[in-house]
């Protein structure tokens, strides 16, 4: 079972991201579940959402306590919430930021991960470019697919098309591809170096 926890703020599409991820996994024939941390779903408030993907039926209902993938949609949360709590440091970490982990001052945490399992990317800036809104969720989903191969682009595209009307889905699919390509590029650069 692969467990994902997404941290962000209300309005950034955190809950939608976990939903899209679970639907994409479903499209690929896997079992999956997603649910939000319930309650304070208001603009700007810290929000978490969870997703699990497995080859077998998933019965547990507890929130994801030990995420194999941690997605941080908003780096200002480092000050408000212990986003790293329980993180499986053999897993992956995706952070929406133009800065490096060193510049963010979180290298003590990120150094515990294997090489190339931690990626930062300017997802909000890319979202502004592709969907004209500060919603980094689909950029990060593309990045997730590239980094983990837990779900793949065609399934993500289908999930986005199912959830949103075409005028919203299309730019989001472009955004997802941009996130995907950026990480593939980073991985290739790392391999060359």
């Amino acid at each position: 079972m692969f467990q994902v926890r997404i941290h962000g703020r209300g309005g950034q599409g955190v809950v939608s991201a976990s939903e899209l991820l679970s639907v994409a996994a479903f499209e690929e024939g896997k079992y999956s579940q997603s649910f939000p941390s319930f309650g304070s779903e208001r603009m700007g408030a810290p929000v978490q959402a969870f997703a699990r993907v497995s080859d077998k039926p998933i019965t547990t209902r507890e929130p994801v306590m030990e995420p194999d993938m941690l997605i941080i949609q908003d780096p200002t949360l480092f000050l408000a919430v212990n986003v790293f709590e329980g993180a499986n440091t053999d897993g992956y970490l995706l952070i929406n930021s133009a800065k490096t982990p060193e510049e963010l001052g979180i290298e003590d945490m990120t150094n515990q991960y294997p090489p190339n399992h931690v990626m930062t990317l300017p997802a909000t800036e890319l979202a502004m470019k592709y969907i004209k809104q500060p919603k980094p969720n689909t950029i990060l989903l593309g990045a997730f697919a590239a980094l983990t191969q837990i779900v793949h682009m065609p399934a993500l595209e289908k999930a986005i098309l199912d959830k949103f009307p075409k005028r919203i889905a299309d730019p989001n699919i472009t955004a997802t591809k941009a996130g995907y390509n950026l990480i593939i590029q980073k991985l290739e650069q790392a391999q060359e170096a």
Partner: protein
Amino acid sequence: MLQQISGSIAVAEAVALCRPEVVPCYPITPQTHIVEHISTLVKSGQLKNCTYENVESEFASMSLCIGASAAGSRTYTATASQGLLFMMEAVYNASGLSLPIVMTLGNRAIGAPINIWNDHSDAMSVRDAGWIQLFVESNQQALDVHIQAFKLAEALSLPVMVNMDGFILTHAITRVDMPTQEQVDQFLPPFVPRQKLDTEAPLSIGAMVGPDAFTEVRYLAHHKQKEALSIIEQQAEEFQGIFGRDSGGLIKSYYAEDAEIVFVAMGSVIGTMQELVEELREEGHSVGILSIRSFRPFPANAIDKALANTRHAIIFEKSFAVGMGGVLASEIHMATVANDLKISSVIGGLGGRTITKKSLRKIIESAMQDELDTEVFLDLEGTTVVRELRRQQEEQNSGPVAENILRDMGVVSASKTH
């Protein structure tokens, strides 16, 4: 057809397949998505011959259900928490008048203190109201049991409440297998009311009953619930025959028959327990789970039988009777009184508190060491409780408890005014 959708949408789609004729509702979290989706299905014409009515209150919602059902319509609504309390008088009337209404309860805590999250306080507030009360473990069961609920309600002419954990199930997106209209039609025949208000053949429903006959009418209500015990089992079997799934029934055992220590619980927590019990059994421990799927009628005999070889039953509940303790625990105690069974009552998940596998493991491990108390509040912050108790002892004007606790925990900077 397999779909990846939320529990609320799954229930709404399943209810629509049951061809309801009247759906009154007053939207309240977390059932909102269910009735919202039904209203969309009615508006789009996908759900035909159905009147959807957004009413002015929960009291009006159940009152309209009563009127519609008495007039011979298949009737459905949903509610939760405070909303259920607001319709309470009508809830008793629906069962007292033997009207086969189906209602979803998206289980939530009851305030004060204000809390919108999941527990079973709302369900327990109507445990004596005469409704059949079924609990589901997953979203697949939620949709399956709604289909069974209509058939059960109409077979008995009694209202049925399907309890599904608010947020944990209603808002979770999981894989469900949505049946076809043909399958549902095969299982659920058209509604033939046992009693019907009809201007062509006038009759009255709801006579005043004095001391001379009240006992008999109430006894018959009890009798009918006891009859439901076998009908619930039969319908679950019939359902399995058509849909190929084990959903519903009175109880469900996960290794309970041959386990020394057994968790007994209702609702979605069973899923988390399943994962834990699989781990523990791999480690060689004799543990199991008994899921109570029908709470009313209470399947005392089936429970007694299922726990016949158990040494220690840990009754886990998401609510309790203040001043008494676990309601399910005391009912299980009564059901198994002839057995030499040790019972511990564990209260957890109140007001949406996360129930972790880790905390459940601690409970079961202390039971293995024979160190589990007869009453435990899961993950209770003892120091916070002691601090407030000391404050109350020291100061007569110690202030409101909820605000004091929140301040102690640093959750809010609730200020004391004096």
